[in-house]
């Protein structure tokens, strides 16, 4: 079959044994997250923790990765997640060129297990795979490690590396490749295995079963569907060429008169009409969109991206002021990566010169240390603990003594007086930029060092035992664990003080009930995973610029009929109650298809930051995309012809084994919890049922109906949220069903 190389590479860092195994047993799970979930089901004993050598870290690519399928440069990095208080499995997602290079080297994925006694890095050049000494790299940042490996392997090497955060077991840390592509949450797993980096060079070729002409036809077809990053299919500004005068609300931000101003010479973005295939890569002017007019356009050198992706979304900037701080003036990142570290500043006006300076200095720090913000949860917690003065009522609500604690911030309560005094609060509270940046550098370094107050390496066990830690270590341990130590933080999470937006099990919301018109589907997506769900299928479709009046008919045609029920609510949720229209079958199907296609994207691999292709920028297509885009590419590449419905079943198989893995681990941790996923895992925070600005307010009765309807779509039991025997059997997972039954985990 095309697409796959036929081999999965396995490296045991405890024994030094390197094996190459057949991919066959994983093909039913495609690759990426699907392959990884299968590995966890087969190999990792329930009860294993993130830092145990038995934990795996799987760099998962799929049959489409490296084939040139547009949007196929992604890698899913799956492991037991250090930030998860229950050490449940999750995935970080990175783009760039590393994944395709692994395929060219001949591997359908990389499974790493065990732990080295000393720092090592992994050398992969086609068939030659070696575990090499990384002693000299250890202690350095990602930039230096990457440079060192490229000195050894050559400039064609693709390198994925961790920084000091990963080394020092900062639970919110990442692995990075290609300067700006990071997989969040897994850096400390590599650190626990003493694995500094993985360098890859592949010189092989991949097979596409389709003929060259058929492939060209398919890629051309896809180009009639692709819009911009985040699914936008109409321009953000009113432009003369758009046939119906549609505009607004998208990242199709190129326009006449807008330039990549720091390019030499400046590059005019222009109108980028829907039929001009040569300007697809310019449509998404994310520098302008994220940093604002007069700032983002001024400092943008270019918009970069991943292997084989015509939609470019990484902003390369030139900010000369950075040289004042000892880092390169040239940086690159996108979205949340541009605000992770600078989130430790406060009071800087958005879309200002100060903002881009702070942002890009933060990029230089965070991407070198390898720090991950847990999609902003860390800064939200930090802001609360640093600034929120607890009232007596809040203290009582949290179960702490109001007499002793009211009138103080959580940090004033929890840090030792010495530690509190050590924090340069004057810089944090300063009104000018320079001290704010100095605070940002200070705190990022503190996090990376991850030390107890006695300067020994911080661990969760020491904190649990009551040993005082530094502020950096309290941040590094992650929100889900820290709330176990600090009741006021748990209380803040429950009632959403200061808008922290904590959901459950150590993770924040991600495109939750604030998502336009999709409150219930978005809530379902946010209940399913063990970190923020990283799902963009729903927001990419509803945010494509066509608005519900056009998107509802499109969804109805592709996945209905729904007999007049709307999958997408017609307008934003409004004050005073932010009420959400009731749940219905169309919304359940919408939630189901959003999660199924996300799993397919993460397994094939394709980019869920731009897909699905359910809409189109072309009026000649009546703005209609296709349901079977993923099925068509999978069929063309592998030669295994599937329909949309058939590949959706593969997506359900992937989701279902993930469900089984999660339930089994929860049951091992806390007996009785795994067998009731509905009430122990698929939970909503209390604040989601109360009006909160700008987001839809869930109704308790409707929420229970939503879960019922979603489980029905999945073929899962309504009472427990667990897959049924019939579903396991239908999906070819009878062996999983037998094991679940033996563990008392069948409904």
């Amino acid at each position, binding site marked *: 079959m*095309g697409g796959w190389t036929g081999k999965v590479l396995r490296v045991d860092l405890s024994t030094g044994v390197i094996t190459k195994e057949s991919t066959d047993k994983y093909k039913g799970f495609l690759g990426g997250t699907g392959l990884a979930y299968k590995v966890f089901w087969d190999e990792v004993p329930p009860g294993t923790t993130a830092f145990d050598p038995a934990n795996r870290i799987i760099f998962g690519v799929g049959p489409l990765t*490296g*084939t*040139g399928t547009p949007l196929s440069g992604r890698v899913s990095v799956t492991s037991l997640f250090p930030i998860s208080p229950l050490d449940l499995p999750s995935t970080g997602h990175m783009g760039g060129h590393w994944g395709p290079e692994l395929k*060219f080297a001949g591997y359908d994925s990389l499974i790493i297990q065990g732990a080295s006694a000393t720092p090592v890095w992994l050398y992969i050049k086609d068939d030659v795979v070696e575990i090499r000494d990384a002693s000299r790299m250890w202690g350095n940042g990602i930039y230096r490690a990457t440079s060192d490996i490229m000195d050894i392997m050559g*400039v064609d090497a693709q390198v994925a590396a961790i920084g000091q955060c990963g080394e020092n077991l900062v639970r919110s840390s990442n692995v990075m490749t290609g300067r700006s592509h990071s997989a969040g949450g897994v850096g400390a797993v590599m650190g626990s295995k003493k694995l500094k980096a993985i360098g890859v060079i592949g*010189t092989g*070729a*991949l*097979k*596409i*079963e*389709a*003929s*060259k*002409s*058929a*492939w060209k036809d398919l890629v051309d077809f896809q180009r009639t569907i692709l819009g911009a990053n985040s699914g936008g299919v109409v321009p953000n*500004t*009113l*432009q*003369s*060429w*758009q*046939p*119906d*005068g549609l505009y*607004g*609300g998208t990242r199709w931000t190129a326009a*006449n*008169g807008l330039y990549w101003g720091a390019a030499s010479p400046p590059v005019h973005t222009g109108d980028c009409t829907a039929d001009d295939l040569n300007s697809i890569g310019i449509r998404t002017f994310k520098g302008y969109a*994220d940093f604002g007019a007069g700032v983002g356009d001024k400092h943008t050198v270019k918009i970069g991206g991943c292997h084989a992706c015509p939609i470019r979304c990484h902003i390369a900037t030139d900010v000369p002021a950075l040289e004042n701080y000892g880092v390169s003036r040239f940086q690159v990142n996108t*979205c*949340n990566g541009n*605000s992770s570290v600078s989130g430790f500043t406060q009071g800087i006006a*958005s879309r200002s010169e100060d903002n881009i300076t702070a942002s890009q200095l933060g990029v230089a720090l965070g991407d070198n240390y390898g720090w991950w913000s847990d999609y902003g949860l860390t800064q939200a917690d930090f802001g609360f603990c640093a600034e929120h003065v607890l009232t007596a009522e809040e203290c009582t609500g949290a179960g702490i003594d109001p007499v002793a604690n009211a009138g103080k911030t959580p940090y004033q309560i929890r840090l030792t007086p010495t530690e509190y005094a050590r924090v340069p609060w004057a810089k944090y509270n300063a009104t000018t930029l320079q001290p704010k940046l100095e605070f940002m550098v200070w705190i990022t370094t503190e996090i990376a060092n991850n030390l107890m107050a006695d300067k020994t390496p911080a661990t969760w066990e020491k904190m649990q035992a009551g040993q005082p830690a530094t502020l950096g270590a309290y941040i590094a341990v992650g929100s889900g664990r820290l709330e176990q130590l600090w009741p006021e933080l748990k209380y803040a999470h429950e009632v959403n003080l200061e808008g922290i937006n904590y959901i459950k099990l150590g993770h924040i919301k*991600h*495109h939750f009930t*604030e*998502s*336009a018109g999709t409150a219930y589907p978005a809530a379902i997506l946010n209940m399913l995973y063990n970190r923020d769900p990283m799902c963009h299928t729903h927001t990419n479709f509803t945010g494509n610029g066509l*608005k519900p*009046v056009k998107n509802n008919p499109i969804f109805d045609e592709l996945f209905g009929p729904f007999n007049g029920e709307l999958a997408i609510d017609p*307008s*934003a*949720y*409004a*004050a*005073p109650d*932010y009420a959400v229209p009731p749940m219905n079958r169309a919304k359940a199907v919408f939630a189901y298809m959003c999660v199924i296609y996300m799993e397919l994207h993460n397994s094939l691999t394709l980019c869920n930051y731009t897909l699905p292709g359910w809409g189109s920028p072309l009026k000649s297509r009546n703005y209609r995309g296709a349901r079977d885009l993923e099925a068509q590419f999978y069929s063309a590449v592998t*030669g295994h012809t599937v329909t949309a419905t058939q590949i959706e079943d593969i997506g359900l198989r992937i989701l279902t084994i993930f469900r089984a893995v999660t339930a089994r681990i929860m049951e091992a941790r806390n007996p009785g919890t795994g067998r009731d996923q509905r009430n122990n895992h698929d939970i909503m925070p209390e604040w989601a049922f109360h009006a909160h*600005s*700008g*987001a839809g307010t869930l109704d308790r009765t409707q929420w229970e109906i939503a879960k019922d309807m979603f489980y029905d779509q999945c073929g899962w039991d309504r009472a427990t949220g667990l897959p049924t025997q019939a579903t396991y059997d239908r999906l070819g997972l009878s062996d999983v069903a037998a094991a679940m039954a033996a563990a008392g985990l069948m409904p």
Partner: protein
Amino acid sequence: MQKTEERAETPDKARIVFGPEPAEKATERKPAEPTVAEIKAKIAETVRTNAEKHSMVTPADVVFALVPGSRPEDKTAILDEMAADERYADIKAVTTASGGAFFFSLTYIDPDQATSKSRIEETKLAIAEKVRGDSKNAVKLTSVGDLHDLVPGMEPDEIAAVLDGMQADPKYADVKSVTASTGDHFFYSNRHMSDYYALVLSRVAANDPCATIAAMVRDESRIYPRPTCVQVFTQDLFHIALCELRPIVDAMLQKPEYEDIKLMVHPKTGGVYLYSSRYLEERIAWAEMHYQEVVVPANP
């Protein structure tokens, strides 16, 4: 530098191996090109049909398009041969003062008529070219005055007659007209400019920015529905300077004819939005504003 040169000399390694072409695809042949005789017959048929059915002369570019290949000498050679062939004795050419060439059939149109018609056809072509160019390249409407400048020797009523003729001609179906509130007529090509964009430009041309803003706000409140951020009106097409925007909006809000237009200021961001209470509830308008101002930026 040396490294770069070395890499440049190394051919790219094939990364992808494709499957074989299907047998029918591999043996697929292009359709045979028409013979010279067939081309001549097609030219004659086209010219005669236009003359008989539509009483039209046929522009040279339409005739040339029937001759495969791009070499001009091939095209003129075929026409020269036709001129000497008695089977095509009725096919004649007429050249206008500006050098435009048209073909007609003597069977259906006499030479004087052909001369007159060719002038009209040439004018249609010039108007279409001007309108399409304005819409595509200058992104502007074409005024009646622009057309008079284009054909200075032609009387206004003659131009009007030509424009009427264009409305009925499928070749010019993309050339549309729009009338501003002042009564002025403008033209655009909807091949290059949307009807809505042309409508907005016609509003701008009326030089009443209050009316322009109110009309667009009503459109957006009715169609999407959504409130409109006033920043939209700083786009070049509105010809409103940033410093003039707020006074214009304030003036508009004072006029009774715009009493349905309401203004909102987001308390956190200071973003200023307008909506029409005729089409949009205040609470929905506010929610949509909050979504754009706060929710979207906070959820990258």
